[in-house]
């Protein structure tokens, strides 16, 4: 095996993070261009099944360490392990996915291996056999091209910047078991507690936001309960509309926002208002439901990476900013859209 590229596969409690497969895909392409192979490395406990998956995503060889001392990630033993395998294999390139673990491992391996690290790259090309990587700097305001002039070139790849390869079930192999390098007794830290993330995502930090506007109250097919006056009925309808927004948000693990019109009308509290006088957000995906796109609202979300608009009015200004638009009723579109995502994201 001529392992030109080594890829660290990040896992947590036995589950491989999908970004690792993107990184492996990058590794495969680089190895092919360099005329060699790509090997994967994974560490944990009861990890053989996860290790075997790496073949499907293009690894020619997979090294795995399986030990109780590796059940919980600690930086030092994981670094020592990866450094050792890297020293044994002498790849030209060592790749990590940019995760909380992958990033610090890449940095620490760079010290062990006396080489340089290029964290969080969004594009890679080979120039005269050497990687030239593109990294956002100054919070993405600028792009830097960087390279490492020593071996191995250690790089972490940003999530969703590279295609995830299609797994090929016909590709199989026998992963190679390696020993853990550091014993539990010599490991300097312990994980004493862990709690899974619960609760809502905060608007300003959210990567995905689904927002509702005035339009959420316009569902004619809903009959409000007895005894409500017009204003109460309107609010009730709007709340039903926001329930649909919330369902989509839940499937997408998104935060819920609102336009000023919806807040003024009393449908939703002010602290969820997105706009010039509310919160300014910059998510990767912003889905605006029943929002016309008044300038005050746009000022609060225009830097979103991808904007999707659902509105009955084809002239609504929001469509000019939207990458994808649906001219239609949000209460007809949202339920099937929620289902469509639910289906696709559970894979």
């Amino acid at each position, binding site marked *: 095996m001529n392992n030109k590229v080594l890829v660290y596969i990040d896992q947590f409690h036995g589950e491989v993070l999908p970004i690792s497969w993107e990184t492996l895909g990058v590794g495969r392409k680089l190895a092919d261009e360099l005329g060699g192979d790509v090997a994967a490395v994974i560490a944990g406990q009861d990890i053989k099944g996860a290790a075997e998956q790496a073949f499907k995503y293009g690894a020619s060889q997979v090294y795995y360490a399986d030990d109780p001392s590796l059940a919980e990630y600690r930086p030092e033993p994981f670094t020592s392990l990866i450094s050792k395998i890297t020293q044994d294999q002498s790849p030209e390139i060592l790749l990590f996915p940019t995760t909380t673990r992958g990033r610090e491992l890449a940095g620490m391996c*760079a010290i062990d291996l006396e080489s340089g690290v290029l964290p969080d790259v969004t594009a890679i090309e080979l120039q005269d056999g050497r990687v030239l990587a593109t990294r956002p700097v100054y919070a993405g305001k600028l792009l830097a091209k*960087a390279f490492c002039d020593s071996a191995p070139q250690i790089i972490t790849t940003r999530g969703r910047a590279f295609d995830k390869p299609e797994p090929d079930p016909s590709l199989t192999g026998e992963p190679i078991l390696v020993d853990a390098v550091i014993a539990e007794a010599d490991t300097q830290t312990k994980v004493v507690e862990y709690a899974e993330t619960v609760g809502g995502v905060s608007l300003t930090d959210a990567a995905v936001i689904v927002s509702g506007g005035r339009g959420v109250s316009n569902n004619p097919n809903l009959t409000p309960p007895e005894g409500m006056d017009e204003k109460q009925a309107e609010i009730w309808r709007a709340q039903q509309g926001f329930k649909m927004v919330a369902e989509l948000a839940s499937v997408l693990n998104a935060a819920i926002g609102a336009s000023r019109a919806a807040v003024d009308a009393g449908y939703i509290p002010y602290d969820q208002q997105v706009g010039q006088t509310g919160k300014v957000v910059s998510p990767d995906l912003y889905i605006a439901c029943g929002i016309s796109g008044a300038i005050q609202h746009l000022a609060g979300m225009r830097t979103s990476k991808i904007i999707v608009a659902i509105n009955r009015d084809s002239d609504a200004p929001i469509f000019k900013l939207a*990458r994808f638009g649906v001219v239609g009723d949000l209460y007809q579109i949202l339920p099937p859209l929620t289902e469509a995502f639910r289906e696709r994201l559970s894979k």
Partner: protein
Amino acid sequence: MNIVVCIKQVPDSAAKVAVQDGQVTWGEAPLVMNPWDEYAVETALTVQEDHGGDVTVVSIGKEGVEEALKIGLAMGSNNAILISDPALEAADSQAVARVLAAVIQKIGDVDIVFFGKQAIDGDMGVTAAQTARVLGWPILSLASSVETSSDGIRVERTVEEGRQVVEGKLPAVVSVVKDIGEPRYPSFMGIRKANRATIPVWTLGDLGIEEPISKVHWPELQNPPVQEIANEIIPGDSPEEIANTLADKILGEKVL
């Protein structure tokens, strides 16, 4: 409890950065202490309030970096050290880490080293871990809360999947995130003290180490491409059809 905080001076986060003649420019925007590092200084001062000891802020750069160190002093740190050497001008993160490790060893008897999560210019986010590795000390990164005892440290940290509590022995290196608590303002008394302070300048010679070789180079900087939005209205005969097409297109943009 002897604490060191490693800080960096960077252009203000509101600055309009651009590339001109291959160089980064930030107009008239001021140079400030890296915002994440303010949280690191705050954490150090809080630990000092609980356990006593000394807080020293250190930074690598040219003379102007003293202004950032003075903010650290004005917030309440006891000492400041500037490491300045022309050989360090284009230092990459592992070179910086090696220098910082030497500084920490020269200061001696250090229990904890605090870093902010990342510097907002280079956005590398690895220097803390690399410094720890050079020192052979454990790294407890992305801490949102810190508890210390005479020989141990306990941090709460947030990873992709949830929150963890990690314990380790001292000495240790810790990087902090914003949840750790709002940094205090420099007090007027602190400002007066910082004004009087003379900050020692150490060179590589003072540290007694060889010039660390940088392996990473940045031959090119670019302004990001201006993007034209391609507006696309999703067609379909039924809401289900539209929904499915839309979901596929959104997933195709890789934002989920």
